[in-house]
């Protein structure tokens, strides 16, 4: 198996070099897509199936679509950028900096302490209290719930940042260009067939997350991708960002999370603490509330800033 690992590592490094060195931005993006998919395999080799699922959903789906769209729109700016390549001195300095960083990290990797410090024992000892079977979910929503709450809020801020880049005249309008469906086209066909399956799979990945690898991020990503598929196929239009239901949906998840956090401060003595015996129902309530918000925020972030008025 070590030979397989060595081959996989070599392939990933080769693709990383391709992403950096490729001539055109589009070639680099295509390499990055392959790179992300291969990272999924690495996560499996490192026994992080939850991480592999996240990488498969985000790296394989959302990031790829985002970067492909950007590379296609920025294609005509590439020729101008080629004349801006920095001089030889900068190249040499950058190479030296890169070698220094790599060497320092490599020394760090080779001298990691043995036995490795680990919180696995603590997680195992306290997981039973939460009644959740998947230790990752336990960490995300009980032991380190603050991180997850802040992450949900960071995502909202990032979306506000994306929206704020809209020109004034289309503020509150719809993101992305108007798409026209070809009723007999293959794209319209797949946008009708795939989303029902995708929603079932997304809900399934979300639901098994309590006890097996999976969870709200991965499920929400899949559902967001399905929504975007119907938008790209022209079967439905992207909503204007001024819609009330949209705004409410975006903040509902984090608000429920915060409300349960304050309720914990009253009933269990600390912000985001759960009263004994209610941990699992509260965790599921948070996940259920958070998932639609996450799906909305991820899809809208990919759709980008508004480009046209709502009418």
């Amino acid at each position: 198996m070590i030979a397989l690992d060595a081959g996989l590592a070599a392939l990933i490094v080769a693709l990383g070099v391709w992403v950096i060195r490729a001539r055109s931005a589009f070639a680099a993006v295509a390499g990055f897509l392959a790179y992300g998919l291969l990272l999924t395999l690495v996560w499996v080799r490192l026994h992080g199936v939850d991480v592999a699922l996240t990488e498969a959903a985000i790296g394989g789906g959302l990031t790829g679509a985002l970067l492909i769209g950007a590379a296609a729109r920025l294609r005509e700016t590439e020729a101008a950028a080629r004349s801006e390549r920095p001089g030889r001195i900068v190249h040499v300095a950058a190479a030296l900096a890169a070698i220094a960083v790599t060497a320092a990290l490599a020394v760090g990797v080779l001298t990691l302490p043995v036995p490795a410090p680990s919180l696995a024992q603590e997680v195992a000892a306290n997981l039973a209290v939460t009644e959740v079977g998947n230790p990752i979910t336990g960490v995300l929503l009980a032991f380190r719930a603050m991180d997850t709450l802040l992450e949900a809020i960071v995502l909202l801020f990032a979306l506000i940042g994306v929206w704020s880049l809209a020109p004034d005249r289309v503020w509150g309008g719809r993101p992305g260009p108007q798409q026209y469906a070809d009723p007999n086209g293959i794209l319209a066909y797949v946008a009708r067939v795939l989303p029902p399956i995708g929603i079932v799979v997304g809900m399934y990945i979300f639901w098994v997350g309590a006890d097996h690898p999976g969870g709200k991020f991965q499920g929400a990503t899949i559902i967001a991708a399905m929504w975007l598929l119907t938008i790209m196929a022209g079967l439905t239009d992207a909503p204007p960002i001024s819609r009330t239901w949209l705004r409410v949906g975006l903040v509902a998840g984090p608000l429920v999370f915060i409300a349960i956090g304050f309720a914990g401060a009253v009933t269990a003595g600390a912000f985001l603490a759960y009263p004994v015996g209610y941990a699992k129902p509260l965790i599921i309530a948070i996940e259920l509330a958070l998932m639609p918000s996450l799906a909305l925020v991820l899809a809208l972030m990919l759709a980008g800033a508004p480009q046209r008025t709502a009418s």
Partner: protein
Amino acid sequence: MAEFLGAASGFVLLMVALGLIRILRGPGDADRVMAAQLLGTGGIAALLLLGAATAEPAIADVALTLALLAAFAAIAFVKATAAPDQDAAPAADDRA
């Protein structure tokens, strides 16, 4: 048996790597987008073989996610490169 499955996984991965070298070099962008499709099929096969070799049942869910999103990059590519024909649409919206 685990050795055989691991070796088969490595073999499929090698085939994928060779194919990647070919299509990433182009010449067209369409060839390059095929990289995602290649990984969608070959990568899933290697992943499932790896999962079977290490007896990890949850791998099926990872493969399911990859399979579901396999066409996503190709669709985004087609939509992004076809976009210039439809640039007239926002202007029409504004006049209305």
